């Protein structure tokens, strides 16, 4: 989901010189981040999980974020189906360390902290992991340009991201494809050593309030052979939001 977050914010088209950045992967990613930057974000998402056995489940949630890249807070609240309505997840991102995450289950009336050690676990039966929900800052990774490739007809840089020492991650490295024309991330492959763990594909890229934003993300779990498709609706940036709405107390409040 950090990839989701990353992609949500990197779709701003700026006419910077691609050539000038081409040799510096750090600069490319910084530019991706800069173009995606917004003070806040809100959308309604539909999550469809397609199991390897073709069993399909669907959920809906609303999402709000305040802040950006490495210094943001987000609150995700499920709205359907009825069994999970009201369940919320609060993510507080930090620039220098992994995020803090809490979950709220209204039927029990309890919040629970998602331990750092649990971040590699699947996010509630989807093909995202809890770690994928983090919004990570460029400074937490080292980047290396692997080359240039065409993906879905678009020219892309293929960049390798490796977590820096001290950064806790289930992945040893990731391959990130960034479109040259708009600095939008269109694919991320996450690896554990040489084994592909997950692949995220970003599509239906539209310009929203001057930020190029993918409206579809398809996450593929290579181990389970299952897919999760996240579709964004009613996406808006830079809405007025309050910090106090991104606390454990706020999470407990029914909307």
């Amino acid at each position, binding site marked *: 989901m950090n990839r989701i977050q990353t992609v949500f914010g990197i779709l701003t088209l700026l006419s910077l010189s691609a050539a000038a950045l081409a040799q510096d992967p750090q600069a490319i990613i910084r530019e991706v981040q800069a173009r995606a930057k917004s003070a806040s974000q809100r959308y309604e998402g539909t999550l469809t999980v397609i199991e390897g056995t073709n069993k399909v489940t669907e959920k809906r949630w609303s999402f709000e974020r305040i802040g950006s890249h490495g210094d943001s807070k987000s609150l995700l609240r499920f709205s359907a189906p009825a*069994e999970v309505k*009201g369940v919320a997840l609060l993510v507080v991102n930090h620039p220098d360390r992994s995020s803090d995450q809490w979950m709220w289950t209204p039927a029990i009336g309890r919040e629970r902290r998602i331990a750092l050690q649990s971040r590699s676990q699947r996010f509630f039966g989807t093909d995202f992991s809890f770690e994928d929900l983090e919004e990570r800052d460029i400074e937490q990774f080292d980047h290396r340009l692997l080359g240039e490739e065409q993906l879905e007809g678009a020219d892309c840089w293929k960049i390798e991201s490796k977590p820096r020492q001290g950064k806790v991650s289930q992945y040893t490295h990731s391959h990130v494809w960034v479109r040259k024309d708009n600095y939008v991330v269109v694919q991320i492959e996450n690896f554990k050593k040489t084994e592909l763990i997950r692949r995220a594909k970003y599509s239906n890229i539209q310009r929203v309030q001057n930020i190029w934003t993918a409206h579809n993300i398809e996450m593929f779990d290579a181990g389970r052979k299952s897919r999760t498709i996240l579709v964004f609706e009613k996406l808006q940036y830079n809405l007025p939001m309050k910090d106090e709405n991104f606390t454990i107390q706020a999470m407990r409040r029914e909307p």
Partner: protein
Amino acid sequence: MRLFRLLSWPYLKRHVLRWTLTVAGIVLGVAVYVAMNTVNASVQGAFSDTVQQIAGATQLQVTSGEFGFEESVLERVQAVPQVDVAVPIIEATVDTSLPGEGTMLVLGVDMTGDTSLRDYSMESADDALIDDPLVFLAQPDSLMVSREFAARNRFEVNSKIPLHTAEGDKTFTVRGVMKSTGMNKAFGGSLAIMDIYAAQVVFGRGRRFDRIDIRAKDGVPVEECQKAVQEALGPGFEVGPPSSRTEHFAALMQSYTLATQVSSLFALVVGMFIIYNSFAIAVTHRRAEIGILRALGATQKQVRRIFLLESAVAGLAGSLLGAAIGMAGAQALASSMGNLTQQMVGVAQRTSEIVVNPWLLVAAIAFGIATSVIAAWIPARNASAVDPVQALQKGKYQVLSAGENRRRRMAAAILAVVSVGTLFFASWKPAFYAGYLLMIGAVLLLAPALTLLLARASRPLLRRILPVEGTLAADSLIQTPRRTSATVAALMLSLAMAMGFGGVTYSMRAAIDDWMTTALNPDFFMSPTANLVSRATTFPEEIGPLIESVPGVATVQLVRNARIMYRKVPVMVVSIESEKLRATAPRKPMEGNEEEMYRLAKAGKGAIISDAFQANHNLKLGDVLELPTPSGIIALPVAGIIRDYSDMQGALFIDRSVYVQNWKDTTVNLARVYVDKGENPDDVKQRIQKAIEGRQHLVILSNAEIREYVFGLVERWFSMSRVQIVVAVLVAVLGIINTLTVSITDRRRELGVLQAVGGLRMQVRRTIWLEALSIGAIGVILGIALGLLNIYYTLGMVRRDLGGLDLDYMFPMPMAVALVPVILIAAFIAALGPAEAAVRGSLVEALEYE
């Protein structure tokens, strides 16, 4: 071998019944030995299996006794650099309302992280809604169940399961069926998984966890991780491998294990007497054959070998059959014994399968053979010493010579004197047990003489009852003390053992009755479950004042009890409102001053310990107890020692303020409720129920119900003594049948003559019956006499090694009175067959006999 074929085989074929009875002695001993040990091993094995199966990849576990600890401890553990995964656990057994299911183990886990340690693979992705864990977490009624459990109850996803919880009877929904992994087999397959935060609510845990399961980081040795976590948490917590839970359970079961060992040994010793009796009789009966063999050149060694070989064969046959019967018995007993131990020690386990230990079977068969050979040793030696000339003189070898009698009495006197001497050193365990064995040895040596004495004493009485039959019966006993005394000795020993256990039960019942009258005197006891030893479910302390505000309620006392580790042994801590308790149920200390005891306890400057706790840990007044708590070690001096039976292993009492402060827990297990004088308890009960309705589900038990419950547990715990009475009866039947069978064979001519001169068949029958009743009566008299001594030693054994309970010596008169008709009826029944055999034989053959 040729001699065995020539001498033993024809004899064996001619006396199938007698051999069957002989073998039955070994069958009995080995069967009880195998069954008791197998059940014991199975109960412990089931617990160990469950621990291992639910441990998954867990390498270490953090516990703080049964009280658990605050949630914040989890973050302290997760922050330890050597820890890779640390997840919280709540473990509880709950009663299901499902037919035939009984209790079920519910594991509360945090599904967001627990999959790192345990395999929750689902049975079928299509059916398993748990593949949507969000629904599982969002709905507090969610349960995952094992495939075995689902199959047994025909459950599938979305099926409903009724469970008794702290919130009353609640219905849960199956949201996943787990694949058949190792974990699924835990607790006999009756396993369910639920969300830990839902479990906190359902089991009244507040914001606490029972334990934390840990996996060390890759490359970090477990010992290093253990040390790091222990340092991070301090000495109030226990950090150890999952297997340490098994050790704790074994420690709790120690007294039970010892009791089963004693019982098994008793069964084997009894079996030994039956064998001895049979062979002693066989040697006497076959002396003519032995004489002929010896005259033909057989050596003494060869004759001895024949009998020892016979005994080995009998031992082998009896052992094999006994082992098979023992295993079958264990299978039948395992489940109920598992339930019993769960009720007694309050530790969840479920024994659905028996543990087949090949070494136990080998050992049992070896013991059986050895017992048989040892028992036959003296008869075999006597057989080898048979003088060929004397061999044809009937009855010679059934009479004890004056010299032999004198030697036996002398030896008995020496053993008795040494045994009495050991009483002066009885505080030293080996001296105590040596004295016990010497006392039994002395009585056994005296058995023939005492049998003869009592037989002679019974002659006038028997003659008065039935002049002819009575005299013949008494004379038969007097003339052949060797034939009778082994049976009497076996009966005496088994009755004495039964009396010993019965005496403990009797004393225990009296002591508990007294204890309940003084200590358990509230009108009501309120608990989240009807099972009072289940400490898994608690309720908030706020309920106490709520109950107290009900009109008619005089006072409410809150109790929280659970086990903690003290000196590496699980001990029961009971937190009490000491001042309130003193006002309603003051306890007189066995040691210490009552005023001072309660003052120190109330001030949090002392603990009150039970006599069993004192004995088990060798403590005295003023000794300082160092108790581990989540806040660290607290030091409490022993402020008083009281007689208490709250727990078999002993209990220590602390004030509730000390508990709340150090364990950071305000929950309650039990509320003791006193009703105002003049109030109708039933009316008050109804008002209480109304007051707590919707707030808290609590079971209200009356004082009478509690008494019944406690006595029920005691009765079940000592049900073993009833098993021993059954064994005693069996011994009586087997021994008496054996003795009478030989007696009739020996007296065949005599009985034939009796009939020839006009004796009626009924007179012969009555003679045999009276002989049997006399053996039974002598056995009962000597058994009760030895029982008087045995009770003393058994109580000593209980005080030393079976829980440290200091019980008063009490003679179980009702049991002794009950034993008389039971044994006499058994003796009479045993005599029916032989008596019929005696009157139905050919008179001509009988007269031609010998």
